[in-house]
């Protein structure tokens, strides 16, 4: 168990380092520099500015400085954002993404798991078909189609919520509903598949044979095992949701992390883009670790074999 977690931790650190390096190398290859847009600067000041930003040093030194800054929590300043440090920007944007994403995750689970369970327990009935129809609808209604529709319907036409922006206390509702519905589709399908596969196994027959009630069979015996594929999906999904779906943030014009990231990549704001990429990677890695841990708890066999 300990060895398993240790190997996963080392892997997580490797991933983070790789993300930082690759992002840095790619951004350096990009034509254009962060000073390009400031046209009328005399040459000696430009050189000073480059020295100040460390742009005159060899690339591996620059990369090392970036990594060093991240590991010691001395975050660099984002030149394009009025000289604020990148952690200030992330600290301001992340709660927006996290509130929307967290609500979306709860909606997705609350909708998806019961739908999938209902479908699995009554296979080939009307309920099964209805649930799977909704789940299939979720598959083919990506956020770039559903988002504008939701904004148009509940925002512009019914006027229940703001169609875009981040002004009122309930502005999280529409983006969270959009994302929650989309993610609930995959969750319902995974729950159904996992539960049906588990219910067909021998130990379930044993449990039934010894006279366990249907509820005990489903909740005590089947659900634990049926959750494993779902958990695998939930790790990256949760990280993706919390850091903000970029499309949803653009559609509903939320001041979240996703929008900062796209803007920073387009503006060649190396510091902010790298910080965003690192933060994304950090969250994904953290959630994967969490999933590994929970899986090892639920099913001790996994931990030993995959370590």
């Amino acid at each position, binding site marked *: 168990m300990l060895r398993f977690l240790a190997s996963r931790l080392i*892997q*997580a650190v*490797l*991933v983070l380092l*790789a*993300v930082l390096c*690759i*992002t840095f190398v*790619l*951004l350096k*290859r*990009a034509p254009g520099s962060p000073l390009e847009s400031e046209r009328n600067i005399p040459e000696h000041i430009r050189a000073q500015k480059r020295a100040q930003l460390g742009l005159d040093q060899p690339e591996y030194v620059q990369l090392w400085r970036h990594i060093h800054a991240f590991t010691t929590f001395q975050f660099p300043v984002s030149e394009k954002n009025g000289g604020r440090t990148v952690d200030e920007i992330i600290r301001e944007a992340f709660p927006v993404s996290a509130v929307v994403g967290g609500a979306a995750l709860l909606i997705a689970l609350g909708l998806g798991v019961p739908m999938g369970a209902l479908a699995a327990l009554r296979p080939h009935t009307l309920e099964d078909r209805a649930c799977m129809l909704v789940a*299939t*609808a979720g*598959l*083919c*209604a*990506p956020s*770039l*189609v559903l*988002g*504008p*529709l939701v*904004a*148009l319907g509940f925002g*512009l036409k019914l006027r229940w919520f703001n169609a875009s922006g981040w002004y009122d206390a309930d502005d999280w509702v529409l983006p969270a509903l959009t994302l929650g519905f989309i993610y609930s589709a995959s969750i319902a399908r995974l729950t159904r*598949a996992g539960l*049906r*596969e588990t219910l*067909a196994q021998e130990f379930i027959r044993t449990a039934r044979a010894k006279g366990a009630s249907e509820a005990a069979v489903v909740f005590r015996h089947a659900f634990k095992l049926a959750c494993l594929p779902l958990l695998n999906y939930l790790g*990256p999904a949760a990280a993706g949701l919390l850091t903000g779906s*970029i*499309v949803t943030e*653009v*559609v509903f014009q939320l001041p979240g992390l996703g929008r900062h*990231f*796209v803007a920073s*990549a*387009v503006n060649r704001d190396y510091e902010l*883009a790298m910080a*965003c*990429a690192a933060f*994304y*990677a950090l969250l*994904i*890695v953290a959630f*994967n670790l969490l999933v590994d841990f929970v899986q090892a708890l639920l099913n001790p066999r996994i931990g030993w074999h995959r370590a």
Partner: protein
Amino acid sequence: MASGMNSQVHPGPWRAAGRRLRRSRLAMAALVFLALLVAACALGPLLSPYGPNDQDLALKATAPSAAHWFGTDPLGRDLATRVLHGGRISLLVGAVATLVATLIGVGYGLLAGLSSRGVDAFLMRVVDILYAFPFVTFVIILVVVFGRELWLIFAAIGAVEWLTMARVVRGQVLALRDLEFVTASRASGARLPHLLLRHLLPNVLGPVVVYASLTVPGVMLLEATLSFLGLGIQPPDASWGVLIREGADAMETHPWLLAGPGLFFSVTLLALNLLGDALRDALDPKSAAA
């Protein structure tokens, strides 16, 4: 190739799979729809009286009518023509990027499955690590860095979507390579190319077809997302992602601009998903029974 090879086994796994597939009415409907869609996107822009970028500024944005089935956009361009024309790019990205992803994935999976234990472990650990990558992030940076050319979008998306394919192929090869018929073939002096072409590839083809078909909608969604964010196909060229963005921006006053491309995109994703699911059920009866 594969069906000929298996013809001595009756009725042949591929023919049996084809029969199972034909029995699924949903899958057949999806297949017919996709065939019609491809034909419409290929021929439609040629038959249409309007060009995809022909502007009619006197017309401006008009609601759907007999002359303009999906209406026109604020520049007076015929939306139906633009949707079909954009469909060419969207479908092309779906096909080419999936091909790129499949080639990388199959190659990598074969390599890992046929390598020694240590090399295999290393290769699959690399895949594990790549799974933890924030990939949308990655594609966005790639596209921003290297410009927004079409071939680059193919490559960037393909380079991201091959991981599951590699895992599937490698697992399949590991299961196959120690089976009696492969051992027998090797014992009788068969070389690697012969083993690959005659025994391994025909047997991994089923799962590869299934996962490739399930990759297509993911790839198309990624392209549409990039184009929606303004990082993919650039106007005046239009993929469905671009058209959906234009529609979303104007939906309050001209909702039909969102309806046309949005509907086409959603129904196409639906058809691709249905077909992929049916293919999996047909080619892998075990998973269908579960």
